[in-house]
């Protein structure tokens, strides 16, 4: 059994969202279909649904990330929840308060959902195991482990452009080794039955035995990008340069950066994705990032609907479980 069975209740329903691993086609499709229904809300005059009216969502960020926190905040607000942003990185952790003490304190404020980002792998799961049973926990990125909401918004964006997953060929390019985005996306694509997943990176940035994840590794983008439907560029973390895993940004761009010439190897209607923020001229050329095949900003828009879907599904299942056990 998966270590993450904690995210499912006894009826196999999603009550936390910690990782894509171990979930089924049905779980992911429920999220994607619900997100599809929520996508139109942003175009209404009143961009708000009453679904989570009276619920309190706490953004518990132990690792700074304005962008991700903002999309969770907006998603919660569009569902009429109240939102509390706690940047623990700069407060209690410094004062030496333990994680459990922090948790108990926030719980005492009568919250319904924790959105957790932490630099330690497994942090969100740890919190899910220790919170009161009515609280839902969403993983907003834990260490190198997982970033499941990003993976869901990625597959949602892919499905809107390329719904034929069995015949889909996806290339993921960049630092696969340190990327929780890549790990979660690979799991999601495999669960949804994507035809082929290629990972393109220098040897130093690929995990050992990467094939066991169900992907084809490739060190040369000229081969790896040929005839793909989707190109996912990963953000190159500048701090990796110091670890001697990479020679220089300039050399990375020269060998792996997505230029118009390289993109021409993919199918003519291939889409270009990136979890943002992009490093222009490091992993992607500006002409590609701003070009007609780029769906990078669409990913940001879709991220709100997908997070709204995950919030309403998990909190809804909590409500249902509570009702059945009452």
């Amino acid at each position, binding site marked *: 059994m998966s270590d993450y069975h904690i995210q499912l209740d006894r009826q196999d329903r999603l009550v936390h969202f910690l990782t894509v691993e171990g979930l089924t086609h049905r779980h992911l499709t429920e999220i994607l279909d619900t997100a*599809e*229904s929520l996508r*139109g809300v942003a175009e209404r005059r009143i961009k708000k*649904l009453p*679904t989570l009216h009276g619920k309190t969502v706490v953004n518990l960020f132990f690792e700074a990330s304005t962008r991700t926190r903002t999309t969770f905040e907006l998603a919660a607000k569009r569902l009429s929840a109240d939102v509390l942003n706690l940047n623990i990185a700069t407060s209690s952790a410094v004062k030496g308060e333990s994680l459990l003490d922090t948790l108990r304190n926030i719980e005492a404020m009568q919250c319904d959902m924790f959105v957790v980002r932490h630099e330690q792998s497994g942090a969100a799961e740890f919190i899910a195991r220790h919170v009161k049973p009515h609280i839902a926990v969403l993983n907003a990125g834990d260490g190198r482990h997982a970033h499941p909401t990003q993976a869901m918004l990625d597959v949602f964006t892919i499905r809107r452009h390329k719904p034929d997953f069995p015949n889909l060929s996806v290339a993921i390019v960049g630092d696969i080794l340190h990327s929780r985005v890549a790990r979660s996306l690979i799991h999601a694509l495999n669960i949804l039955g994507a035809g082929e997943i290629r990972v393109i990176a220098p040897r130093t940035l690929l995990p050992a035995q990467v094939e066991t994840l169900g992907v084809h590794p490739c060190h040369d983008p000229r081969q790896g990008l040929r005839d793909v439907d989707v190109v996912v560029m990963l953000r190159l973390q500048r701090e990796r340069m110091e670890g001697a895993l990479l020679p220089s940004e300039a050399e990375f761009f020269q060998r792996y950066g997505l230029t118009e010439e390289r993109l021409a190897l993919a199918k003519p209607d291939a889409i270009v994705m990136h979890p943002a923020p992009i490093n222009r001229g490091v992993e992607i050329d500006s002409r590609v990032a701003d070009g007609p095949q780029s769906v990078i900003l669409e990913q940001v828009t879709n991220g709100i609907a997908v997070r709204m879907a995950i919030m*309403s*599904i998990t909190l*809804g299942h909590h409500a*249902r479980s509570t009702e059945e056990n009452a």
Partner: protein
Amino acid sequence: MGNAEFLIEALTGQLRELLTRRGITDPALVGIHTGGVWIAERLRQRLGITTPLGQMDIAFYRDDFSRIGVHPQVRPSELPFDVDNRHIVLVDDVLYTGRTIRAALNELFDYGRPASVLLAVLVDRGGREVPIEANAVGTRLQLPASDQIELIGPDHLQLRIQTVP
């Protein structure tokens, strides 16, 4: 199991008369998923309304989220016209507690401020829990609470009444 098509005839007649009486020449129809959409499309054709059909799934507006959560097969709501100053006809298959219509009205007003809203239903089975009534009704049935009534479609609409143990 009963054929529902003749009820649609009755409903069409009532609605036509009502719209004439109110001087409404260009209403917009909004069906509530799923049965309401099937009926609304038939009404739209019979009344010769050119405005495209609106569809609403009220799943995110229901008042029982804290008991049952979100329906797993929720569909997108789509109102392909400007709601502001428009005469709207909400259409549903069965009017029972009135809670669905309460939710639908809330959703509708999040799109804009209609000139008026009418409610047309195929079956009114009584049992209201909120003060909501229909303006046009295909038929009225008195059913015990243990009976479930369901519209089967999308072709050859049929009403199925079942006693739930």
